């Protein structure tokens, strides 16, 4: 929790980091500003950011302001073909498909974002404790991770679903349970390296508390890895949610996966009900993955040439 209060700029300025050389060339620019500069350097990043922002905006604004209802039964619009009024037609309840599609996006983003945040948080904490404590604690935690990683994720999802019923929380819970493992491994690896660094040893010898060393010195320095795994976790969670909804194991709320599922059934009469959500889902995935890549490159310039 404390890590959220820490100012990233300060931390990175005061600690040694992978990118010493570059920073020393530009002494007045902080690490995060440098990352930002490198991130925005590529034109495609700007394009995809705008696209993603547009998609997110549509997801949250279109359903809020659309004049056409997506609840209740609209008798006169049932199975409407695409028209000036119903851009993508209407479904069997007479709901405007264009509006409904963006409503579905809300579920996808909620699941993706919330579960990515939670699984990263858990992963960071477990990974940090495991890496810093070492010894038996480390052994135990890492073996636990090994076991969890080898439980097929579908089994966990289905079991959680049976215990908790079908709701968006079930999906998030199941994704978090299966998702934190990789982050934990990565963070542990980083901490293992970092804890032998001089400044940590110095802090230890001067009697700085363990929590303080962990949260003020070690975890902030793993931020690069954490951000990378976070950007990977979002599309992965969205993918999983879509997949689960597609096979009928979803949350019961309208989502892109469930829309594609029904779209598949009606695709000969209403092809757009399959094509439109598929395209939007794919575009979103594309944007998030590309931006994640660019962010990773920006964080670790050594990879980039």
């Amino acid at each position: 929790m404390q890590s959220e209060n820490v100012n990233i700029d300060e931390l990175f300025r005061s600690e040694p980091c992978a990118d010493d050389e570059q920073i020393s060339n530009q002494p007045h620019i902080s690490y995060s500003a440098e990352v930002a500069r490198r991130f925005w350097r590529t034109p495609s990043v700007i394009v995809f950011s705008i696209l993603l922002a547009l998609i997110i905006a549509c997801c949250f604004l279109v359903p809020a302001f659309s004049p056409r209802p997506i609840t209740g039964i609209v008798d006169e619009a049932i199975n409407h073909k695409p028209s000036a009024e119903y851009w993508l037609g209407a479904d069997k309840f007479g709901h405007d498909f264009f509006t409904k599609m963006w409503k579905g996006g809300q579920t996808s983003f909620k699941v993706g974002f919330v579960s990515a945040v939670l699984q990263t948080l858990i992963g960071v904490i477990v990974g940090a404790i495991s890496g810093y404590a070492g010894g038996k604690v480390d052994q135990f935690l890492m073996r636990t991770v090994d076991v969890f990683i080898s439980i097929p994720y579908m089994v966990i999802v289905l079991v959680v679903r049976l215990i908790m019923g079908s709701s968006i929380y079930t999906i998030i819970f199941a994704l978090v349970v299966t998702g934190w493992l990789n982050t934990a491994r990565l963070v542990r690896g980083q901490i293992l390296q970092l804890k032998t660094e001089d400044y940590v040893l110095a802090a230890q010898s001067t009697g700085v508390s363990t929590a303080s060393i962990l949260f003020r010195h070690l975890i902030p320095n793993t931020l690069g890895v954490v951000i990378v795994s976070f950007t990977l976790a979002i599309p992965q969670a969205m993918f999983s949610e879509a997949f689960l909804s597609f096979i009928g194991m979803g949350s019961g709320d309208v989502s892109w996966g469930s829309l594609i599922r029904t779209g598949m059934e009606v695709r000969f009469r209403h092809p757009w009900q399959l094509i439109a959500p598929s395209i939007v889902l794919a575009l979103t995935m594309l944007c998030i993955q590309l931006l994640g890549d660019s962010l990773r490159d920006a964080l670790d310039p050594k990879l980039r040439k």
Partner: protein
Amino acid sequence: MLKYVVRRVLIAAITVFVLATVTFFLLKLVPNGLFADPNITAEARAKLFAHYGLDKPVFEQYLMYLKNMAHLDLGESIANPGRKITTMILDPATGNGLPQSMRLGLCALIFSVPMGIALGTMSGLNRGKALDKAVIGLSLVGISVPSFVVATISVTVFGNMLGWLPTTGFSTPKEMILPTICLSLSPIATIARLMRTSLVEVENADYIKTARSKGLKKRRIMLRHQVRNALLPVVTILGPITASLLCGTFVVESIFNIKGLGGYYVESISNRDYGLVMGLTVLFGTFLVAANLVVDILYGLIDPRIRLKR
């Protein structure tokens, strides 16, 4: 080296054992609607519970389960009375279940690995050119479009609309094309991207510079040093990719009506077919563990630094 291998195998074995235990107790948490039927009396239900040994204390059930598991006997299916679970998972008479899933996974694997490496190499060695851009585009599609969308659309286009390819079954070569491609797209994309990235990294490594300065032929450098070294990171992800291809064929199997294990996944859990669920979980878990084990050992062989560190 031997010590390293023994250690890894031992850890893998313990992992599988713990996995079996965790799954067993996890499933005991599930509210069971076993034999819930308005026409079945409590007494008849009790008899059925006794038949499947579900009336015993949980720990006793657990010991029985471990004992049977050691004999590779997973007991009788609850949903399909009288049917052995081992036969359901691996049916030697029909080749359904695991063999079928493995055929599908294997086809996808032997299609996607060379394909991904080839595309990644071409792209990495021709950076910035049209070919590179095409490969990047393709791999982006591969990672952004879910397999169920690919499957649905390819069935519609190549099967329903054009009628070029059959859309069900997996026995004739023609039938194998669509499922294999649908399943391969994402691993191809992943491998190609990784291959490209690691080629770029390797290119600037000192030993390549050295090789160049020694005046070795570019082609020779490329094949002997660059590609070979760039393959290292690709090897690491082959484990997870193999495991996911062999196990994660659920949607493709259901859309193309391939009688693999995928269908049992959901069905067994909703049927509360405990034996089958546990069998599948342990099987898939073992696959995953084994795939990672092989990669670990391979990596240890290739890169001696790894095993020395341990």
